[in-house]
């Protein structure tokens, strides 16, 4: 039964992708893109990747859509249809797809337990994690400890995007001939979203905090929590207007969160060095290595959550405040 459902979802995914590319109304395209991300998240869930599904839903369908909409408000909603180099595009695309399908013939089948990926490295993680780190969620263990250096890099990718957006949109805007319609009051005058939305915001933030602090035991962690809390705060900004949102959390504070989160992560890593281990070695943080690992993971997940939330909010405000 679940297979039929999976095939249905995957087919829908392709149809949505085609629709995104074909429609000339960019607003519609962005909305379809959000559906595409949700379908993708559902697929991930079927494939037993709960953490990834949560992230894709929060980041792909939530934050990305809002940033796209923010950019659309500053640019144009309609695409003036003009295709460039269509023949070339079709040629390149056809060659690549044929090559990829050629590669699939020798790929292990879906769910094959004999596949090489399930024989090496991964079983070690599943076997050793209870003993070495002592937390149930192996994804969090790999993310935060075994491959914690990747995750550090990841936080700095987000940081780079954040300073990039602030740098680009920090340039003085050109003079406008026509004043932009006042959108800064948000949805204050719309009763239904106002009432429902206000009720939702605290619960979204609460759920984000749960995901943050429960990441060792269930699906969740810093990235997901940061993205979810940011979504809640963005909803608040949409309801109450840009100004009220900045009054609640000033931009300086948001940027401080990004810097603070990234430095917290780095500091935990350097602390490992100072205490005689390698960079990002958490086992030296406590006399019991397993405890040390857990403290380290909690600290760096907090850093990730703070940095991601701050970065996504900064990026959102940079787009929303530009006029």
């Amino acid at each position, binding site marked *: 039964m679940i*297979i039929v459902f*999976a095939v249905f979802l995957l*087919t829908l*995914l392709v149809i949505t*992708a*085609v629709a*995104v*590319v074909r429609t000339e109304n960019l607003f519609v395209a962005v909305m379809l893109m959000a559906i*595409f991300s949700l379908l*993708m998240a559902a697929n991930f869930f079927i*494939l*037993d*990747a709960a*953490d*990834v599904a949560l*992230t*894709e839903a929060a980041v*792909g369908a939530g934050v*990305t859509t809002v*940033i*796209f909409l923010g*950019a*659309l408000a*500053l640019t*144009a909603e309609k*695409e*003036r249809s*003009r*295709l*460039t*180099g269509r023949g070339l*595009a079709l040629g390149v*695309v056809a060659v*690549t797809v044929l090559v*990829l*399908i050629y590669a*699939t013939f020798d*790929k292990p089948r*879906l*769910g094959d*337990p004999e*596949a090489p990926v399930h024989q090496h490295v991964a079983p070690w*993680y599943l076997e050793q*994690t209870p003993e070495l780190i002592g937390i*149930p969620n*192996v*994804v969090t263990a*790999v*993310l935060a400890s075994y491959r914690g250096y990747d995750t550090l890099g*990841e936080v700095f990718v987000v940081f780079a*995007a954040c300073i*990039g*957006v602030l740098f*680009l*949109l920090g340039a003085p805007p*050109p003079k406008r001939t026509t004043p932009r319609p006042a959108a800064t009051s948000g949805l204050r005058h719309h009763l239904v979203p106002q009432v429902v939305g206000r009720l939702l915001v605290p619960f979204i933030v609460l759920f984000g905090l749960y995901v943050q602090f429960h990441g060792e035991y269930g699906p969740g962690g810093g990235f997901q929590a940061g993205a979810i809390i940011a979504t809640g705060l963005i909803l608040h900004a949409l309801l109450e207007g840009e100004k009220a949102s900045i009054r609640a959390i000033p931009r300086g504070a948001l940027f401080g969160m990004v810097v603070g989160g990234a430095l917290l992560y780095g500091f935990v890593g350097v602390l490992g060095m100072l205490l005689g281990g390698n960079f990002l070695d958490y086992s030296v943080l406590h006399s019991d290595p397993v405890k040390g690992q857990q403290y380290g993971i909690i600290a760096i997940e907090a850093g990730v959550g703070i940095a*991601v939330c701050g970065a996504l909010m900064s*990026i959102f405000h940079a*787009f929303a405040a*530009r006029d």
Partner: protein
Amino acid sequence: MELLGHYNYWVFAVALMIGFYAVIARGNLIKKLLGLSIFQSAVFLMYITMDKVEGGTAPIIQPGVPDQIYSNPLPQVLILTAIVVGVSTTALGLAVVVRIKETYGSIEEHEIYEADQPS
């Protein structure tokens, strides 16, 4: 599962190409970025497809269930990272598009190109 075979991989290949086509053939800069998002998402699907084990469940160790099969945690970790890379790239790309719109008054590739040709 036998029935499905490689369906996931084919969807990956097709979705990848739809996105790639939009990136190359569409002249609108925002459309290019949407295409790029689809292109990246398709790769996520390829990685996540690998992690599935028949009869398995999400890799969260359940005490007291000794014989439980778990799916592979590693591709999930990689894709968590890649998703955030994707949104970072998109945000930066959109910031560039906004600045292009402000300085050129257009987000269509050919109009921007023509605006810079000495007349």
